[in-house]
């Protein structure tokens, strides 16, 4: 039997309405009865339009948001039932890479400080000495195809693709098993995107990682993912094997998204 890495069970999230100086805003149903399960070692894609609830779901998996109802389990552990200490330990196993490599790196921290920060945060769980941390930093950079000569430089000295590599190195620092990738390549050039996608494939093969991959770009999802779920206004409208959904979409929404997808191919 395949092991389940992440299980989202009937999760709903309602942001309460607010009364402010610009009038009242109604409550927002950001997630409605979302259920899906991600198997260990696979790449699971989540696709949906802006505002459809993708980031809300990611934040819930990181326990930065508490679902209004339903439960989220990581390797069988229910996030809602864990103690603070257990949650901290779990967090070292679930990491995230964000869309914008420019915004998500602190310009005043060196690459060394950036990639070792999670080691400091998860010190309790990982318990590394300073010496071990330095070794780990060099190892992480080489994993993402950079070198230890980059360790003492600052983010502004790097290109977009290199910054995204640094973000990936940081996410890998605590030795996670599940990586949440929130549009990791959409701010990059196609050439750099290709390099980052290849890197993600390679890392998954080497480290046995599980990916939860969020994207607007269906071509990228089809390339990287084994299975995919489509989300529209907080509801999952279709999920299944990538090949099946791309070749024979069942829902109107899937057909619309796939129809809007441009194909560019070098003729042989």
């Amino acid at each position: 039997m395949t092991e389940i890495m992440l299980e989202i069970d009937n999760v709903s999230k309602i942001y309460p309405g607010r009364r402010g100086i610009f009038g009242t805003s109604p409550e927002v149903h950001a997630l409605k009865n979302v259920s899906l399960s991600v198997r260990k070692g696979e790449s699971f894609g989540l696709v949906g339009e802006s505002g459809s609830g993708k980031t809300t779901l990611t934040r819930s998996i990181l326990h930065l948001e508490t679902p209004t109802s339903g439960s989220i389990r990581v390797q069988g552990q229910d996030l809602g039932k864990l103690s603070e200490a257990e949650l901290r330990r779990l967090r070292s196993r679930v990491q995230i890479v964000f869309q914008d490599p420019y915004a998500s790196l602190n310009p005043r921290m060196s690459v060394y400080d950036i990639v070792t920060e999670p080691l400091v945060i998860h010190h309790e769980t990982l318990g590394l000495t300073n010496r071990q941390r330095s070794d780990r930093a060099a190892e992480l950079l080489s994993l993402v195809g950079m070198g230890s000569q980059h360790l003492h430089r600052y983010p502004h000295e790097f290109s977009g693709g290199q910054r995204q590599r640094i973000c990936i190195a940081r996410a890998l620092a605590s030795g996670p098993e599940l990586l949440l990738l929130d549009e990791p390549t959409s701010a990059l050039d196609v050439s750099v995107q290709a390099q980052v996608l290849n890197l993600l494939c390679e890392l998954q093969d080497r480290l046995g990682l599980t990916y939860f991959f969020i994207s607007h770009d269906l071509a990228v999802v089809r390339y990287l993912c084994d299975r995919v779920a489509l989300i529209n206004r907080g509801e999952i409208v279709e999920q299944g094997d990538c090949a099946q959904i791309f070749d024979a979409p069942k829902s109107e929404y899937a057909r619309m998204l796939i129809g809007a997808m441009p194909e560019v191919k070098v003729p042989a």
Partner: protein
Amino acid sequence: MTAPLLSIRDLHLRMSSFDGRAHVLNGINLTVNRGEIWGLVGESGCGKSLTGLSVSRLQPTPPAHYTAGEILLEGQDLLKLSPSQMQRLRGKRIGMIFQDPTTNLNPAFRIGEQLVDVALAAADRDPEVIGCAPNAGRRECRQAARKLAGEMLTRVGIPNALARLDDYPHQFSGGMRQRVLIAMALIGRPDLLIADEPTTALDVSVQAQILELIKNSVKDFDMGVVLITHNLGVVAQTCSHVAVMYAGNIVESGPVAAVIGNPVHPYTRALMSAIPTRETRRGELRGLAGSVPNLITPPPGCRFAPRCQFAQPACTTAMPAPVSVGDNHAAACIRVNEMEALVDD
């Protein structure tokens, strides 16, 4: 014969920076007629934005120096205009959508006021724009401009547009602000629209909507468009023509069907093969190794040579000139005529 809407001829631009002088545009030639949408593609740092900024003359000199060439708008050289003459052209004859903060919305003014101001400025040249009689009073013009502002917001997909005219920019989400900027660029019915990555931050369905809007505006107002993007999919969906830029040169250009259907320049082919397709197997995406060269000391001859799989010693002796390979389709590579045989193996 009338002059083309936009004709950039042999434009050379040098940029002074701390490290030296960079040859950032190195003999750009581009002609855009009314009714055409030209995609300008290439990796970041290839000079796409500087080409756009040059046409709207928003690139300050210094640090920029135009060392040769001309930028003709219906025959008039924009490089020879004074700042105030240029100011009058912008927003009226040349509309712009940039992600650059200089053209962003002013946070202190309501969305509607900002749109109305642009519409009224454009109406000075052509009262048709807001649909007012030439002798109409100020009040009447303002009202007409406000009505138009509401219509434009609706056209760019802002729900409940009339009610939102009195909002301030901070009350709009990022994607909505981008749509307001697009409305602002189109409201004066410019002859030429320069759009620099207008949909990069938006998702596929909003992107499709905005691109459709640009296409319809080209038909309705008979404009010409330069659409800067690094997304070849967007080009395939939207543009009539495309120019591929590499390190300050246009390396391949022509009608979209010709260039995308039959790319001949090794750089164009490499860019296209970096996009995953239905057939791409996992882990087998052919990335384009290396990066755009430093333009202070660019490589000799063909600037793509250090990354080109077909490079030969002859490639580095002189900058390749564009070679015609079909109707209006050209590529700057000394081996274009061998390309068919080369890619077969």
